[in-house]
């Protein structure tokens, strides 16, 4: 049955027999897609007198927005921070593989590196839409080098930097070589001169994240007031929560967050980086801010024993709810809606509202992935 051609001749697909994530719950509703976007079927019926060209039976599965990973350092033998002949090809390779895990958009992440690496890699990693070739690249996440020596974690000490006295983003432009295609920067706000950096980055539309830092709560709150909106892997590489100065962790319940703004926090929900009980405390304190990230490294996807970084192999089995105690819709939103809200793209991604891109994942009740779609096109099936 062809659709009425009054608005568009593009074919309409109707996903039937599924439970979709809508209004924070799983609802038994059909999902309609046209031109890679989610379609309002009521408008289609009354305005266009149209209907679906084909129906896809989902077999009772859960249909959720595709996952968005804002912290992914590499995988399958590729390390984004290690320059290779063709950095773009490395990103593309990983982008294709992560479709199997339901990730439809991501931010390739570069850890602290010397300027030469940034100058070589950044121009090759461009923002681009996803498709059968792989997940979409939303922009690069630069984690470092403007971070704390004390909390460098696995970052190489010799390449850490400070902002210097000039103010503004010039030191960043020097080190990175430019801010094109950059969607997020992680920095330590206690470094002198950070305020103007945070402010200017925010004004340029770059998400500022606090991490690898020994900032106290006051310094963190100031950074938020300048525009910072994310915390990189909460609990890890920052001062521990202390009842007289909760540090960065205290942002979850701070009353000095500007009105209308929210602080999001990344969680590596593998049960290893953070004790599940600590995860639950954070989730209960500020459920709307939880963003699930993998912080996957190049060893992801490789058999055990082949990794070279000396860190644990983190096998990612889809973004499982290690966040024990939260509901399925909440876990799904932490992997899709919240990262989209963080990046300011929730009108387009991370949600099944009408008009959003039809980036979807199909999964069973155990959250085992069955298929991945980008712009309504199937890009992976189990």
């Amino acid at each position, binding site marked *: 049955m062809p659709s009425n051609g009054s608005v568009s001749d593009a074919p309409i697909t109707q996903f039937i027999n599924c439970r979709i994530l809508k209004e924070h719950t799983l609802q038994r509703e059909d999902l309609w897609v046209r031109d890679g976007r989610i379609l309002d079927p*009521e408008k289609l019926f*009354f305005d*266009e007198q149209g209907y679906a060209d084909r129906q896809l039976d989902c077999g009772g599965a859960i249909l959720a927005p595709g996952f968005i990973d804002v912290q992914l350092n590499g995988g399958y033998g590729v390390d984004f921070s290690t320059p290779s002949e063709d950095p773009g090809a490395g990103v593309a390779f990983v982008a294709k593989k992560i479709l199997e895990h339901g990730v439809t958009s991501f931010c390739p992440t570069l850890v602290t590196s010397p300027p030469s690496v940034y100058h070589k890699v950044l121009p090759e990693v461009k923002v681009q839409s996803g498709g059968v070739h792989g997940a979409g690249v939303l922009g690069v996440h630069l984690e470092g080098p403007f971070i704390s020596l004390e909390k460098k974690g696995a970052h190489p000490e010799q390449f850490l930097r400070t902002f210097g006295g000039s103010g503004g983003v010039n030191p960043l432009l020097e080190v990175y070589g430019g801010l094109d295609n950059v969607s997020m920067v992680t920095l330590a706000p206690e470094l002198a001169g950070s305020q103007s950096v945070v402010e200017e980055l925010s004004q340029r539309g770059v998400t500022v994240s606090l991490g690898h830092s020994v900032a106290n709560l006051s310094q963190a709150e100031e950074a938020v007031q300048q525009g910072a909106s994310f915390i990189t892997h909460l609990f890890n590489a920052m001062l521990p929560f202390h009842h007289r100065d909760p540090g960065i962790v205290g942002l979850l319940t701070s009353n000095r967050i500007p009105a209308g703004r929210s602080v999001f926090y990344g969680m590596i929900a593998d049960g290893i980086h953070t004790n599940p009980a600590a995860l639950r405390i954070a989730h209960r304190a500020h459920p709307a801010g939880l963003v699930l990230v993998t912080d996957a490294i190049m060893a992801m996807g490789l058999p055990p024993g082949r990794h070279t970084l000396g860190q644990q192999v983190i096998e990612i089995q889809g973004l499982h709810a290690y966040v024990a105690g939260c509901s399925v819709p909440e876990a799904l939103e932490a992997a899709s809606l919240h990262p989209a809200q963080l990046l300011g793209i929730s009108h387009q991604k991370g949600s099944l509202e009408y008009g959003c891109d039809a980036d979807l994942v199909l999964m069973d009740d155990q959250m085992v992935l069955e298929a991945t779609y980008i712009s309504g096109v199937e890009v992976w099936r189990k």
Partner: protein
Amino acid sequence: MRLVILEDYDLASEWAAKYIRNRIITFRPTAQRYFTLGLPTGSTPYACYKKLIEYHKSGDLSFKYVKTFNMDEYVGLPRAHPESYHSYMWNNFFKHVDIDPANAHILDGNAQDLEAECAVFEKDIADAGGIDLFVGGIGPDGHIAFNEPGSSLVSRTRVKTLAKDTIVANARFFGHDLSKVPTMALTVGVGTVMDSREVMIVITGAHKAFALYKAIEDGVNHMWTVSAFQQHPRTIFVCDEDATLELRVKTVKYFKGETETLCLVFTSYQ
């Protein structure tokens, strides 16, 4: 008239849905000869629609060659508003069945020229060959569609101002805020429904009992507009026990006897 009395709301809804289903099936509609159905909204027909959807999903009933005409729609309420009758029909019926969107007619309460909209609706009904079966409900004040007390019994599709009773009854759909309830509506006229070849009125609940009494045991009166159907050659009233509470025992006994016969007749071509 026929008065069919079932024990409760669910059974009454099922009976009504089966009647509609059987009418459509025995009519054998085709692309050259559509079955035309008049449809209501509100809480009364809700379970009936659920049953019709069930019959469709089980493969027994198709709406491919059915044209529908809804009774009414609020004036000035955005079509996408959850309480508009467009939303009601989409969510509770159209999206679950295979009706062609071009055949689903609902009055547009946001039309530029409301009178013209009503005139076109009447014309669309005439062009479709008239209505085979008009399904309706009854308001607590005895109105059919939005033909409030005092409406002409030969009225056509037009704009009506809603009575206070109706606005109060509808407030529950607008957060109990009277100021949010629309005050005007487009509605088919009593005459429009009288023109149908068959009429089925579904009435359930004790709060409708007095209206039912007025409609079928009292005289034809424009204050209780459903009473007009006393003069229609083929009307069925489908009720539950509670709706008969204001009727005479004699009336109920007579029609209950008849119902048993009717049900036997129906089971023979289910």
